[in-house]
């Protein structure tokens, strides 16, 4: 569905990619025709779409007009860095976001208002602004982290990816924290928590066994949505920190109107988004005994 939209958008492109490629104000018509044939630019929409989709399924996204090499190779070479960045940011978001939200919901009187204000501000702080702040403070200021690049080897990579991951995570932490707080508050108000309190169950066990466990569904859903959204966010984080990943490739290709790459990466991002959400649905079904029952019977 989304793939048709992506591909369709490319197809109605006003400029002719072939002439863009050949360059010059008066392109040679024969060269143009040759290139059109080579890149299947002369086919009608559905034929060309199906060819593209068929290739995409097999991992063949065609060839980049700018880099003059297979799109799949270009993406594959950068995928690990981007995945690492997303995973790093995801862990930061879930640990910090759920932790803060739990604290805010539980210690509503003492921490609730402060965390609410803090998260509201955090949610307005985009990745590229936090990138600037982090670089100023932790890289050029304190010199703890490098300013640019992705590093090599796992430890070095993680070290290089720390600032990007935190910049990427920053506003999402606030989002997850707010959602966590809301569902924790709701669970704390639920009647079965009254039962547990009335039985003298210690507050800590109530929080873990009844509140967190019951709120885990919505928390998981929000976290999943967030992680899925991170893939799009890598475009900004990688560009801001000069990391040569898939996101940065997307931005550079968009600037050069290298449509084969943009098509492929947006498809990959959407698939990643959909897959993460599917995983969340599955996990939710496993977590909720009522849902399991429904699917089973």
């Amino acid at each position, binding site marked *: 569905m989304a793939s048709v939209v992506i591909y369709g958008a490319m197809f109605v492109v006003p400029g002719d990619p072939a002439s863009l490629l050949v360059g010059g104000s008066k392109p040679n018509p024969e060269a143009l025709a040759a290139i059109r044939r080579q890149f299947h630019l002369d086919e009608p929409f559905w034929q060309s779409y199906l060819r593209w989709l068929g290739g995409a399924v097999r991992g063949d996204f065609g060839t980049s007009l700018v880099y003059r090499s297979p799109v799949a190779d270009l993406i594959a070479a950068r995928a690990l860095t981007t995945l690492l960045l997303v995973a790093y940011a995801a862990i930061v978001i879930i640990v910090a976001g759920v932790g803060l939200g739990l604290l805010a919901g539980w210690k509503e009187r003492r921490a609730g208002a402060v965390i609410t204000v803090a998260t509201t501000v955090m949610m307005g702080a985009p990745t590229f602004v936090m990138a600037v702040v982090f670089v100023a403070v932790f890289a050029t200021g304190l010199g703890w982290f490098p300013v640019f690049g992705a590093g090599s080897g796992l430890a070095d990579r993680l070290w290089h990816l720390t600032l990007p991951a935190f910049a990427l995570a920053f506003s999402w932490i606030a989002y997850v924290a707010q959602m966590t707080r809301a569902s924790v508050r709701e669970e704390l108000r639920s009647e079965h928590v009254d*039962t*547990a309190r009335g*039985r*003298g169950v210690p507050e800590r066990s109530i929080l873990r066994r009844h509140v967190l*466990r*019951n709120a885990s569904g919505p928390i998981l859903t929000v976290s999943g949505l967030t992680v899925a959204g991170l893939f799009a966010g890598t475009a900004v984080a990688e560009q801001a920190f000069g990391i040569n990943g898939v996101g940065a490739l997307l931005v550079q290709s968009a600037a050069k109107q290298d449509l084969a790459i943009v098509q492929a990466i947006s498809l990959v991002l959407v698939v990643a988004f959909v897959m993460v959400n599917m995983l969340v649905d599955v996990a939710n079904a496993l977590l909720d*005994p009522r849902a399991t029952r429904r699917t089973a019977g």
Partner: protein
Amino acid sequence: MSALLSIDRLRVELPAKKGSRTVIHDVSLDVRAGEAVALVGESGSGKSMTTRAVMRLLPEGARLSGEIRFDGVSIPGMDRRALRRWRATRVGMVFQDPRAHINPVRRIGDFLMEGVRLDGRLSAGQARERVSRLMRAVGVADVDRRLSQYPHELSGGLLQRVMIAAALATEPDLLLADEPTTALDVTTQEEVVAIIDGLRRERGLAMLFITHDLDLAAAVCDRIAVMYAGSIVEERPAGALTPDASHPYTRGLLAARPEIGRREPRLRTIEGRPISAFEVGDGCAFATRCPMVRDLCRRERPAPVHVTGGRVACHFAGEAEPQAVVGDGAAR
């Protein structure tokens, strides 16, 4: 003889949009060890709030005045630890809606074991043994399977039995039962009441039994307190209520009782709308509906007066009332 549970001039205010709202005006009630006391009243009269005040499960920001003592110890004055210990060992609570009050994502076994293992004295095996015994005691068959099931896999009646088992699991001295059968269908209602009644007598438990059913109250309790708009208006020994009732509201309730075999109309047949506690003015709370109301009633709130075996709060308690005060369906 001093009471196991003693509620003295309890007053509860809840925070509202503007200021606060009184939901309990004046509740004084004693439950002696081994005794069953019923709290009867229309919906909204403050029965649940009273039990919540006892359990210290009031909504946040609630203001409570008066005193509640258990075995001589002030419950509102307990610190966190004492409160937890008291809740875990001395009192058991059965809520109205077991489906809402039992965590839906935990197994029945977990729910029961959680309470039993709180004081840490029982091993897992012993705890399981006790839980199984209790489940059989509340009439659950096929216990092992039930323990591994989730709440949604059990019927309401079974769940309420589980709740009762959980309340009894720590061998408390006092059972609080807030309309334990209202959410159940009629046939299971009788079974569940029989289980509560039987186990209570067998164990010599004290009980505060909340209901809106006078007959049920009379059947399982030793004493009955009638509540209206946040206050107790009359209290009598269960056997003496029907002949002796002298508060116009109690008389109205008695007259409005359904006849045997005709269950539908319950407390609805007293003329007028039941008011909430916060709507009560200076005078008698029942004045807006009372067939015997006079000027004094609207000016001055009647204080509870001791009468043989009980108490009544009415300026004109026991006076003959005019005929046909209770609207029976045919007249309307």
